[in-house]
Each structure stands twice: as C-alpha cells, then as structure tokens.
C-alpha cells in the first residue's frame, strides 16, 4: 500500500498532465508539490518530536535555517562569498552537521522544561537567532541574506530542473519518513515514547530522560536540516525572512493542520498550506493569505485538535470501517501532553 503510494508519487509529474494542461502540470510539480515536500520535511521534524516525545518545539524552522545558512556560507559560488571554498559534496554534510548540533543545543537548553514552557523557550530561541542573523553583516550578510546557492549537478542532472528537484526532495522525504518509522520501534524510540507518557516512570527504570530528550532533538535537528538545505537550494539562497516569526509559525500551522498524531500529517498539512498559499488569490485575496490560513488554523484547533488525520479517522469511524488506525496508541499529542502535566 505505502509502496504503491510512493510509486504513484514518483510518477506524479507524468500523471498530472493526464488531468490538466501540461503547463499547469509543470507548475504543480515545481511550485506546489516540490515546495510542499520541502516544507513537509521541516514540519515532520516538529511532528516527530510532538508525536513521539510530546514536545512542541518552535525552533525547527530556525534549525532548518541554520542548515541553509551553513550551506550558503560555505559553498562556492554563493553571493556574497563569506567563507566559500567548499563544493556541494562537502558543504551539504557540513550543513546537516550544523543543524544536528543546533538541534542538540536547543534540546540541551530546554531539557528541564516541558509543555508550554518548552513552547515559549523554543520560540524565544528561534526569534533570538532570527534577530541575530538579521543584524549580523559579517557572517550572514544581514537583512539581504545570501544569494545564488544554485545546487549541485547530480549524475549529470541539474538541480534547477524541476523534475530533478522534485524527485530528490521526494526521495529525501521518503527516506526520512521510513527512518522515523523505524526509529520509533528501536529501544531508543520506545524510551522516547515512554518519556512522553510518563517521564518519572522511565527515569525510575534507570533511563536518562535528559539524554534521550536531547538526542531526540538532535534527530529532529537533522531532519529539519535536510529540509533547510533543500529549501535553500529551491529558493536559490536564504534570507532572514525564511526563519522569522511568520515562517516559524507557518511550520507549526502545517503540522497542526495535518495532525500531530503521525509523521504523515506533516506532509498533508504542508500540501494543504501550499495549495492555500498558491490559490489564496482566487479564494479570498492574494494579500490576505495570512487571514485565510489563520482562520483555517483556528478552525482546526477549535474543531479537531488532531488535524486532518483526526478528521479522516473520525470519518472512517463514522462510516463504520475501523480497519486500521493511522494513529499510535494515544490519540493526539496535544491532548497527551496535557494529561501528563502534573
């Protein structure tokens, strides 16, 4: 089933022209699907933490931005040249390392806090990095950011080709997605879920709650870093706006709209978000996209806190076909996080 779905997604750029004019199909591949997958990867890092650890971190977009900035600072050909001298083959692993390190750092700083305190601290950290990057010229070229990060040529295929980008992004997303599903079945993943459900009991069993939490943030940092690298190449550069308050909140919106019960929610949410973003003009008003997405977000939080996944599950239950639930044992992590608060 999921293999079939993946094959369908792989073939999507060739299937789309069957249902719409070719020009439009190309637009969908490049501007909607490609972007949705890249955003989805960043959102998935948040969903991973929320679903399996019960941590809502607002630092994920900032961590993605760290990877993007690391790439733009190191790679050859970026304008302005800040460090330079690295090819993509070396710069991309370096960026992922930087993002993982930042993830670990965020995890370490926030290790003694939970729930809304964690939300506040990660938001403050994200905004702090944003304001630092925005005002620092020497390393990040301030408000303007760094341009001309065109991406590598892969086996003779140019990254600027929308089809190549789409497939690389899709493959990355699929690998990370499968990696998460595997990771949560390992002893590490089980301890993480134990921490979500009852940290005190996990500690009593002799596991270090703090170290597992920090490691989980490191994993999420790596995932966000992959998204950051791809989005920087997609945008041919990076500027502070990419990691501002708006962008930070957008990632949260995607995760919540999709549903925090399962990693797949991140991609559902990012697709809904991107479609709204692209077609806001014809629905309401191009400039008022934020009002539109804000209303959708508010409606989801008020009506179905477990997002689109929750709505889907409810419809299935309603139709009387309780075949298999997408959700793990506990319903939505928004709720679980609260039941556990002392």
């Amino acid at each position, binding site marked *: 089933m999921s293999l079939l779905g993946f094959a369908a997604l792989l073939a999507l750029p060739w299937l789309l022209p069957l249902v719409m004019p070719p020009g439009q199909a190309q637009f969908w591949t490049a501007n909607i699907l490609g972007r949705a997958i890249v955003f989805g990867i960043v959102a998935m890092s948040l969903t991973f933490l929320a679903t399996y650890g019960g941590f*809502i971190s607002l630092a994920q977009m900032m961590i993605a931005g760290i990877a993007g900035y690391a790439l733009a600072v190191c790679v050859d050909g970026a304008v302005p040249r800040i460090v330079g001298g690295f090819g993509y083959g070396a710069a991309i692993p370096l960026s992922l390392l930087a993002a993982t390190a930042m993830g670990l750092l965020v995890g370490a*700083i*926030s290790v*003694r*806090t939970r*729930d*809304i*305190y964690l*939300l*506040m*601290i990660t*938001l*403050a*950290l994200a*905004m*702090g990095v944003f*304001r*630092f990057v925005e*005002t*620092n*010229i*020497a390393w990040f070229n301030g408000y303007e950011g760094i341009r001309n990060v065109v991406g590598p040529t892969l086996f003779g295929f140019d990254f600027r080709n929308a089809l190549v980008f789409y497939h690389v992004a899709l493959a990355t997303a699929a690998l990370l997605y499968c990696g998460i599903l595997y990771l949560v079945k390992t002893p590490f993943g089980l301890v993480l879920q134990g921490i979500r459900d009852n940290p005190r009991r996990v500690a009593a069993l002799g596991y270090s709650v703090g170290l597992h939490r920090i490691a989980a943030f490191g994993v999420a940092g790596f995932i966000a870093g992959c998204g950051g690298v791809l989005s920087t190449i997609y945008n041919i550069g990076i500027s502070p706006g990419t990691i*501002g*308050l708006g962008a930070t*909140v957008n990632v*949260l919106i995607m995760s*919540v709209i999709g549903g925090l019960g399962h990693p797949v929610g991140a991609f559902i949410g990012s697709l809904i978000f991107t479609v709204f973003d692209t077609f806001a003009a014809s629905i309401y008003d191009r*400039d*008022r996209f*934020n*009002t539109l*997405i*804000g*209303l959708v*977000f*508010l409606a989801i*939080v*008020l009506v179905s*806190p477990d997002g689109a996944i929750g709505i889907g599950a409810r419809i299935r239950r309603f139709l009387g076909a309780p075949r298999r639930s997408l959700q793990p044992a506990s319903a939505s992590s*928004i*709720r679980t*996080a*609260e039941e556990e*608060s002392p």
Partner: protein
Amino acid sequence: MDLAATIVLNGLTLAALYFIVASGFSLIFGLMRVVNMAHGAMYLLAGYVGYSVFEPLYDSDVWYAWYAGLAAGVAFAAVFGAAVQLALLGWMQGQELRQALVTIGLSIIVADQLLASYGGTPRQFFAPDAIFGSTQVPWVGGYPTFRLVQIGIALAVGVGLWLLLNRTKLGMMIRAGVDDRQMLGACGVNVPLVGVAVFALGAALAGLGGIIGATAQPLAMGADGRFLLISLVVVIVGGMGSIIGTALGAVLIGLAEQIGQAMFPTYSVILTFVIMVAVLALRPQGILGRA
C-alpha cells in the same frame, strides 16, 4: 561617565516599557496558565486603534488628543481581551497547549487585518505639550521628558498591580486562583468571571504598552513579534506570574540590550539570550519564580 549614565537611563526607560507590556503577559499566565501568544498582536491593535482616535483630534489641535487615544487604545484592548477569553479560551480551560495555539491563530489574523486596514506605514503619536520636550537630568543633561514619564508610568503600573493583588478582594481571588482554582470555585467565587477580568486587565496592559511604545518610537508591523518575544524573555528570566520578578527581568533585559548595543552593536542580541539561557540552566523557574 556621562555616556554611561545616558546608557543606563536609556536602559531603564526601555525596561519601563518592557515591564508594562510583560506584566500583562505575566498576569494572564500566572492566573490562567494561558500563554497569550496574541499579546504582541494586542499591543499592535491598541496602538493602531488609539492612533485612529488620536489623529483627527490632533489635527484639530485639541489638547486631550493623546489622552483620548490612550484611553481608546487601552479600552479597546481590554474589551478585545475579555472577548477572546469569553468566546474562545474559557471553555478549553486546562488545555494549555490548545489555548496557546488558539492565540497564535488569533495573532496571525489580527496582524494581517491590521496590515490590511492601516498599511505598512509607520505611525507615531505626539505626546501632549505637558510631557513633551526635554528635562535636565544630572550627569546626563537634556533628556526627553516623555521617556522619564515612561518610567513613572511603569512604576505606577507596578505599584498599582501590587496593591491590586495584595490589598483588594479581587487580588485575593486571583492569588487564591493561582494556588487552587477548584477550591476557589468551591468557596463560591465565580472563577470564570475572575478569569475574564484578569484577561481584560492583562490585555489592557498590553494596550497601554502599545500607546506608550508608539509615542516613544514609531509603530509598525513587526512590533507584535518583537514585543511578544520581549514578554517571553522577560517572563522567562524574571519568573512566571511574579510582579517583582517581571520588573527585575525587564530591568535586566532592558539594560543588557542598551549596554550591549553600546559596546558590541552587532552581537547585542546574543547578550539577551545568554542571560536567558544562564537563568534557565540555573533556575528553570526564573529568578523569582516559584518552583
């Protein structure tokens, strides 16, 4: 010496503004356990609403233009805050994360609608003649009078809040609610109504900050994010729900920001966050917060 005194005075006036805004945030969090992510949006809302009352009056040259703008902005923010608590947050009491998400959604919509109706041009209030101009301050020389008034208002807010919380019946209910909501309800107090009052008061303080802030420096889009961040950091550093803690946090952050900008301009932001991280590492509940 003169420069140092000026920097310290700048830091204190900034701290005064930060305290006014953050005290509302801290108050709402202290009683309601609601992280009001729309606090910055309320700051912005009061600023713009106050401005639309202020502008025509100022143009027709009435002396009370600024005061009318102040009253309108603060009142509007209070009503808005009460409405949010009544319509959206009240019935999901206890679901802290969901409430935070609701206020995030609200803040996006409010900021976007403000942008739609007021555009991106910065607005600034002109203080009334009585508190306009400059005053001689020892060691510093001429200093904008309004900035000194700002410190006075912050002191008044601090003392007023302290009196309200420690010397009135409402304050008694609020303090009891912080410790045990259910017991307070069992004693016959209408807890939801107290909640609405607290929310209105917290939002009014954000509004007061909005008007004062927009008089000291231009008001523009983006101020909502900035003051939400400031509120978060001040409250994290000072301790949640403590007035004195909030004041201490505001003074620390205000001074750090000004001293940092004077000594190492491009890295001043980092200083603020070093303070925050150090406090979190040593006292996760904040300097004066209760564990």
